[in-house]
C-alpha cells in the first residue's frame, strides 16, 4: 500500500512539471507531425516511379518488364534508354532504374546466374529500397519460371535447336508464368501493397518516436531516485516504517503508470491527429502499450541503478537511448541497414517495441501476431528489473 502512495506522489510531482509534460506529449506529437509530413512525399503514398533500361532501341524485354511492373498499382514503370534513365534518377524524377544484363534470357534458360543492377536515387531511400526489393522478388519468380521453361524445353526434342519463334514463345511463356506468379502469390502481392500503401510516414514514425520519447520520459522518472537522494527525501523515507523494496517498488509502479499513460495518449493522439491506424484489435494494442511501458520502465530504471547521480543518469541514459534508438530502428528503417546492424538491432528494446507496433499497424497482426515481441520484452523486463532492484537495494 505504501508503495502505491510513493507511486501516486511521484505521479503528482511529474504531472506538475510542465516541461516534462511538453517533452512527454507535445514534443513527440510535433516531431511525428513534422517528420511525417516531411517524408509523406517519399514514403510510398505516391507511386514509386522507376525505369527499366533499354539495352537497344525498342528492347522488347525491357518493355515487357516495365509493363509487368506497371501492372502493380504502386509502380509507374517505363522502358527508357540508359542515359535518359540515369539522368532521371539523378534529377530525382524517378526513384530507381533497373538495368537488365545482356543475355538475361539465355542465362535464365540455362539456369545460370545473371546480374540485374538497380540505380537508386540516394535521396529517395524508401522508394528506391522498395524498387530494389521488388527486383529481387522478380528475380526469384524469374528463376522459378526458368526452371519451368527448362523442363518444357527438356520435354521436347532437344536434338532440334529451337527456332527464334520457339525461343520467343518460350520467353513469353516464362513471362506469363511470372505474371501468373504475381497474381497467384496473393500474400506476396498483398505484402508489397502493405509495405508501400501502408507505409505512410506518420504510421512508421509514430511508434518509433513514441518509444524514444517514452524512454526519455522514464529516464526523467527513474533519475528521481538520485534526485531524492540528493534532496534528502530518500534517506528520510528510509527513516519511516517503509521498506527499501516498497520504496523501489513504488518508484517502479509510478514510472510504469506514467509510461502507460504517455504511450496510450500518444496512440490516441496520433490516431486523431495523423490518422495512424494502430490495428483493429484494441486488446492487442493495449497489451503492446502495457508491455512496451513495462520494458521502457525496466530499461530506464536499470540506467538509474548503474548510475551514481542524477546527472550521471542523464548523461549515461541519453547516450544509451540515442544509440539504442539509432541501432534499433527508431529513427530510420532498420530494414535498409547492413546485415550486421540488423543483427545488432535485435539486441535493443526499441527494435522489439517498434516491431510489435509495426505488426499491429502494417499487418493488423492482432494478439497472436505480436506474441514473440511481447515475450521478448517481458523477458528483457524481468531480467532488467531483477538487476535494478538488486543494485538499488544494496545502496
Amino acid at each position, binding site marked *: 500500500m505504501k508503495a502505491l502512495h510513493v507511486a501516486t506522489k511521484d505521479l503528482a510531482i511529474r504531472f*506538475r512539471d510542465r516541461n516534462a509534460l511538453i517533452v512527454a506529449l507535445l514534443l513527440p506529437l510535433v516531431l511525428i507531425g513534422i517528420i511525417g509530413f516531411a517524408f509523406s512525399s517519399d514514403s510510398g503514398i505516391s507511386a514509386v516511379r522507376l525505369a527499366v533500361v533499354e539495352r537497344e532501341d525498342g528492347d522488347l524485354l525491357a518493355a515487357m518488364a516495365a509493363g509487368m511492373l506497371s501492372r502493380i498499382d504502386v509502380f509507374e514503370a517505363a522502358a527508357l534508354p540508359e542515359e535518359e534513365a540515369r539522368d532521371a534518377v539523378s534529377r530525382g524524377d524517378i526513384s530507381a532504374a533497373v538495368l537488365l544484363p545482356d543475355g538475361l534470357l539465355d542465362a535464365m534458360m540455362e539456369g545460370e546466374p545473371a546480374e540485374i543492377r538497380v540505380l537508386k536515387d540516394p535521396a529517395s531511400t524508401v522508394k528506391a529500397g522498395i524498387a530494389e526489393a521488388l527486383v529481387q522478388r522478380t528475380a526469384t519468380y524469374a528463376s522459378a519460371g526458368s526452371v519451368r521453361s527448362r523442363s518444357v524445353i527438356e520435354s521436347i526434342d532437344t536434338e532440334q535447336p529451337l527456332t527464334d519463334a520457339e525461343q520467343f514463345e518460350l520467353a513469353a511463356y516464362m513471362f506469363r508464368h511470372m505474371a501468373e506468379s504475381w497474381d497467384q502469390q496473393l500474400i506476396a502481392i498483398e505484402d508489397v501493397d502493405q509495405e508501400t500503401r501502408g507505409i505512410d510516414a506518420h504510421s512508421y514514425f509514430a511508434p518509433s518516436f513514441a518509444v524514444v520519447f517514452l524512454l526519455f520520459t522514464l529516464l526523467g522518472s527513474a533519475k528521481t531516485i538520485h534526485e531524492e537522494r540528493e534532496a*534528502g527525501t530518500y534517506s528520510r*523515507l528510509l*527513516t519511516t*516504517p517503509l521498506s527499501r523494496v516498497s520504496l523501489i517498488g513504488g518508484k517502479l509502479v509510478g514510472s510504469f503508470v506514467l509510461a502507460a499513460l504517455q504511450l496510450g495518449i500518444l496512440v490516441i493522439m496520433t490516431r486523431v491527429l495523423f490518422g495512424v491506424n494502430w490495428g483493429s484489435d484494441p486488446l492487442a494494442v493495449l497489451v503492446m502499450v502495457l508491455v512496451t511501458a513495462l520494458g521502457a520502465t525496466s530499461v530506464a530504471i536499470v540506467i538509474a541503478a548503474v548510475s551514481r547521480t542524477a546527472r550521471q543518469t542523464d548523461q549515461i541514459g541519453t547516450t544509451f537511448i540515442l544509440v539504442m534508438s539509432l541501432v534499433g530502428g527508431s529513427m530510420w528503417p532498420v530494414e535498409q541497414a547492413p546485415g550486421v546492424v540488423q543483427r545488432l538491432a535485435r539486441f535493443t528494446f526499441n527494435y522489439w517495441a517498434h516491431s510489435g507496433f509495426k505488426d499491429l499497424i502494417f499487418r493488423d497482426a492482432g494478439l497472436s501476431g505480436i506474441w514473440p515481441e511481447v515475450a521478448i520484452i517481458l523477458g528483457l523486463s524481468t531480467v532488467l528489473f531483477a538487476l535494478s532492484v538488486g543494485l538499488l537495494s544494496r545502496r
Partner: protein
Amino acid sequence: MENRPIIEVDGLVKDYGRVRAVDHVTFAVGTGEVFGLLGPNGAGKTTIISTLSCLVPPSAGSVRVCGLDVVSDSMEVRSRIGVVPQEIALYQSLSARENLMFWGRMYGLSGTALTRRVDELVEVVGLSERAEHRIDTYSGGMKRRINIAVGLLHNPQVLFLDEPTVGIDPQTRRSLLELALELNARGLTILYTTHYLEEAEFLCDRIGIVDGGKLIAIGTQSELVAQIGATDTIAVEVEGLEERSLPSLDDLPDVLETVVDGGDIRINAKSGSSLLPSVVGRLTDAGVTIRSIDVSAPNLESVFLHLTGRSLRSEPEAAEQDGEL
C-alpha cells in the same frame, strides 16, 4: 525528566571503508530529556543520528531506541522516532499539506486521523494559512518549520533534530528553538545535534561533546564546566605582535593557562575581572596595542577549547552566531 533511558548507545563504532566516523561512543538519554550532541562539522554527529534512526547499521556496538535494537527491530524503531534532517527533505512542487499527508501515510496514518493531525501540525508550526501553497514558494524558515512538522506527524517518542538551524536567520532560529522547547515541555524526548554553542546552552539538559568521532565529554553544562575547573576566560585581541614579543602572562597571579593563536590571546584564570588590570598593564607596558578585550564566565566554548585545544567558533558559520540568541 525521567531516568529510564529511551536511547542507549553502547560502544558504537561506524566505519566507512577505512575511515572511522564514530569511535566507541557510549551514552544514554532519559525519557523527556533534551540531549545535545555538540561538535564541529565532520565530528560524527550526523553519523550517530543516522545509526540511531536506522539509516546505517553500526559496525560494532549496540544501539537501542525505545528499548528496541535498531538493527533487528528496525521497522518498529522507525515507527517510534521522528527524524528532522539537516536538509529540507520535502517535495518542493507539492504543497505543505500534500507533503504532510504523504509523509503521514508513510508513517501508517490515514483517513480523518491523518487529516486532523495535519491540520493540528500546520497550526503548531504557524503555517495554517499557507498550508495549500507549494513548498518552493516558502521562505527558508517556513520550510524548516514544515520540515520539523513532518517529524512530528506520528507523535513519535523521540525526535532527532540534526542541525535544524543551519543557514537560517536569527529570528527563525529563535522560533525553532522555542518550538523545540515547547515540544519537549509536552513530554517529547529530543536528541539535538549542533555546532552552535549557544543553541546547545539554550536548549539542552545535557550535552555530549563530539570530536573526531569520539565522545570526549558528557554532562550538563555546569558539569562540563566543572570538569575543566571553574575558570573565567579573558579574550584579548592585539596587534603588532610581529614587531614586538608577547610579554609573559603566565606569571600573573591566578592565571591557569594562556593560549595564543595569531593575534588572539585567551587567558584562563580563577577570577577574570580582578586579573584584567594586570593583563592590560603588562601588555601596554610591552608596547602591544590592544584592539579588544573581553571577560567571560566559563561556558561550553571554554570546555571545548580546553578539551580539544581548538575553538568551535573557528567555524565560519558559528562566528555569525555571536549574540544572536
